[in-house]
Structures are given as C-alpha cells and as structure tokens.
C-alpha cells in the first residue's frame, strides 16, 4: 500500500550566482507522515524549505505542494501549509490570545469559530491562566507548544517545522513531540528539521542532505541497517563527515 503523495519534488535546483544551494533534489513526502529533513549547517535545508513554502522560486525543477504548483500557485500553497521556526513564530509583545486571534484572522477563520478553537486549544495546552499574558514573559517550552499549535490552527495539510525544539529540557522536548505525533495522527503531514538525532528516530522517514544534495532517504531503521550504525547519530556522522 502506497500512501498519497502530498509533496512532490522533481529535480529541484536553486542557485545563488555560481553557488548551487540545492543540487537536483528529488523526493516525495506522503500524507500524514513525519518527514525528517536533516543536514549539516549550510547543507541547503533552509533554502529548500523556503522554496517548498512558496517564499522563494527555484532555479529549475517541478514541485507540487498539496497538489499546487510552486511557480503559479504560491498563494494557494501558503493557505494550505503551516510554518514554525525556533527563530520566529509568535509576536513577543502581543498576548497569547492576541497571537492566536491574529493568526486566525490572517488565515480567514471566522471569529466565532476562532473563539471556540482558542478555548479548546488553551485547555488542551493547560494555558488558560496565561491567556492574557504577553508572549515575552512565557517559558520557552510554552512558547514552542503555542507556536506549533498556532501553526496548525487553520488545519493545514502540511506543517513545516524548522528546528522547533532547541534549548528546552528533555521532558518539555518530549511533550512537544507528543503534539507532533498527535498532528500526524490527525492527518497533518509534518516536515521537520532538527539537530537532535534522537528526534530523527521519531520520524517515519528521514532525508539527509550534504553540500546541496540528498545523500540518503529512508526509514530510520533501514538507514541504520544500510550504514551499519547503532543510531541515527552514527548514520549522520557517516554521511555528513
């Protein structure tokens, strides 16, 4: 049984002048899977993610995101995806509730529905007491959980997570992954980058980029077998070193 394809990338090339940041990438991502997108700093991950999100145009290649064409339908793509990065996700000088309302408004969710969903969300995250607090004053773990929840508030088909979990304690980091599993279980495709190799093991499939190319793509189990490695850390070191 082969699942439905939600991201199709064929021969993606992105050049900046003489420098090739993405060198002929070809891969598919299936609906509802957790897809780990790994690589060393400077391997070209962020460049590729920006293209897949419709924020940057490739030099060449055929790419479809949730069925939409990357050249002609970027606005439709943006409506169907969510995005979260560690560097920027929430407005620090707005409250928890204001951030949720802002995103709901941007994605055109009617205010009555947004209000209901906000209450549900805050209850689930056990953050009702923080509703009127500024983001700036919240613990990092709360910010990350909220940022993720806001990124999937409009029920996108795909959510892109660019290093979502840096800097938090191990329990908080795992609670964050509970949310990822839940989203995936609800049919949202999760496309995630991380420097934590144990998190690579949580993915259904993992691709590893090095110097602009995808060097390996498979399930963590098969990658470990092929590279004769105990864990994903060893696989990564064998490929990217």
């Amino acid at each position, binding site marked *: 049984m082969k699942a439905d394809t939600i991201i199709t990338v064929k021969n993606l090339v992105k050049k900046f002048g003489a420098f090739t940041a993405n060198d002929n990438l070809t891969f598919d991502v299936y609906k509802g899977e957790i897809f780990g997108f790994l690589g060393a700093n400077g391997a070209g991950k962020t460049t590729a993610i920006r293209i897949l999100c419709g924020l940057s145009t490739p030099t060449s290649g055929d790419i479809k995101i949730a069925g939409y064409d990357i050249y002609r339908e970027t606005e439709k793509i943006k409506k169907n995806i969510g995005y979260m990065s560690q560097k920027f996700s929430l407005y620090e000088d707005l409250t928890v509730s204001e951030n949720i309302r802002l995103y709901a408004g941007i994605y055109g969710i009617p205010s009555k529905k947004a209000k209901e969903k906000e209450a549900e969300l805050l209850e689930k995250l056990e953050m009702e007491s923080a509703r009127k607090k500024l983001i700036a004053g919240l613990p*990092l773990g709360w910010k990350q959980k909220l940022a993720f929840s806001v990124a999937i508030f409009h029920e996108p088909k795909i959510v892109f997570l660019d290093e979502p979990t840096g800097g938090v304690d191990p329990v908080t980091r795992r609670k964050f992954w509970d949310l990822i599993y839940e989203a995936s279980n609800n049919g949202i495709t999760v496309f995630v980058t991380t420097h934590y190799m144990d998190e690579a093991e949580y993915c259904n499939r993992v691709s590893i980029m090095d110097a602009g190319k995808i060097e390996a793509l498979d399930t*963590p189990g098969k990658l470990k077998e092929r590279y004769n490695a105990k864990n994903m850390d060893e696989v990564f070191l064998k490929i990217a070193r």
Partner: protein
Amino acid sequence: MIEIKNISKYYNDIQALKEISLTVEKGELFGLIGPDGAGKTTLMRILMTLLLPDSGEAKMNDLHVVKDFKKIRHIVGYMPGRFSLYQDLSVEENLHFFATVFGTTIEENYDLIRDIYYQIEPFKNRRAGKLSGGMKQKLALSCALIHKPKILILDEPTTGVDAVSRKEFWEMLKALQQKEITILVSTPYMDEASLCDRVALIQKGTILDVDSPSRITEKFPRKIIQVHSEDMFRLIQDLRSFPKAESVFAFGQFVHFTGVDDEVEISELDKFLTDRKHRHVIVEEIHPGIEDVFMSLQSL
C-alpha cells in the same frame, strides 16, 4: 580551579541561582547541563566578573570574582552564547584585535590555537559576519584562547550547531584540556554530558546532582524499561493508560517506561501490549542514560 560557594542571584523577584556551590578542579573538563532558564549563563557571567552575585562567594584560581575582577579577566577566556565578535572585521582582524587587547600577539600564542585556527585560516580575509556557523564557532574559540587563558568558560558553544560540527568541537575541547586549561562548558544537549570529566545537572537555579557522567547513571536507583512496537503514537497512548505507569516518554526509536515504585514487570507490560494488538513488541530493562536521570530529578 573554580570554587563556588552559596552563590545566589535575583533578577527582581525571580531567583535565577539558589545558593549554588560547586568546585571545578584544575585541568578538568566540567559540564553544566541544563535547559534554557536553568541559570547556566547567570553563573558563568558571575564567574566572568560581568555580573555581581547577591550573596555567596566565588574564586577563580584563588582570585575573588568581586575584589580581584581585573586580575581574573587576564586569566580567563570566554565564549558567550551569542556570537560576539566584530562582524565587520575580518577573521584575522578579530584575532589580532583580541591579541592586542590582552597585550600579546597572534605569533606568541599561535601554538595554542593552531589546530583550531588553521581550519579557518584560508578565510582569514573574510568578514566574521559572513562565516558559516561552524566557522564562527572556531573563530570565537580562537579569540577566547589567544591570550593563553588558564580557565576557559564556554556558554552553550554547540547550541544550534549540527551533529558533525558538535563532535569536532568536543574533540577540540579534549585537545585543549591536555594543555592544562580548566574548562567549564554549558550545554542543553544531554548526550554531550558523557564527554565531560564531571557534570552538574542544573534546573531552575538549583543543582540536581554533581558527579562523573558514568557515576550519575550508575547510582540512579530507578528501573527503566525500554519498549518498542510498530505504531509509536498508539504505543505511547497505551503505555500511559497502563494503571501502574509513572512516566512514559519517547527516546529515539524506543519508549522509556518507569512504573510506580518500579513494581512493573517486563512480562506484565509485554502481555498488556500484545493484548492490545501491538506488533513487533520489544520490552526490556536497560541501564539509564543521563537524560533519564535528568528527567527523573527534574520532576521531583
């Protein structure tokens, strides 16, 4: 040698450090392991004489962090968490600048930085702001070493750095340790703890434990059961619904399970999962890792 006695620090009504005491021996590679907000940076800034403690005392090679702050600054090297070199100066200019500030030259102490600096020397005319993350890290370490410090303090040098660069960085630290430099390094990556001689696990301004990484895991009294099945999401849900479950968390391809009072048997858990139609079930007791210990201590 670093001696820390009952150091406390408040930011308004938040206590960032709660009577911390700690000794780092001469030539030791010592790790401060803990998440954001644990107090790692505050402690390092106090040791670096950049911040005054509210109470308690600390000494760096017998120099007092408050009274002898000027002398301390000559014997310590510091790599702050944020890249703090001059972005619009070149690699070489930055290094030259730091050497001059400390009244020395690049040539005089080149021995100490050679193994690190040669990797970025081909780019010595490039502006620091234009370097990749890994190269910035190497330059920052070179600048922190150029005056031949006796104590090196590194604040999360590997945060946000990929696994390959992280490994290389730790190899550099090991090499520096051979040159009798005392190194205090902080990290939020628990797996890096095993690379230190001793570590302090720190959370919310309190030290949870100090020991060698192997001792910390050996003396941990809890029984950790490692569980695997094909459907990770359902496995976690089911294990959490097990009546005697205390904690259930994903660890790579496995789930680590601790039972209430450690009274859960392997066979019970195996049957519980098989009854729930899990496939390819593995249930086995394992030795705990640093992360297991940290997670258990932080929830006390």
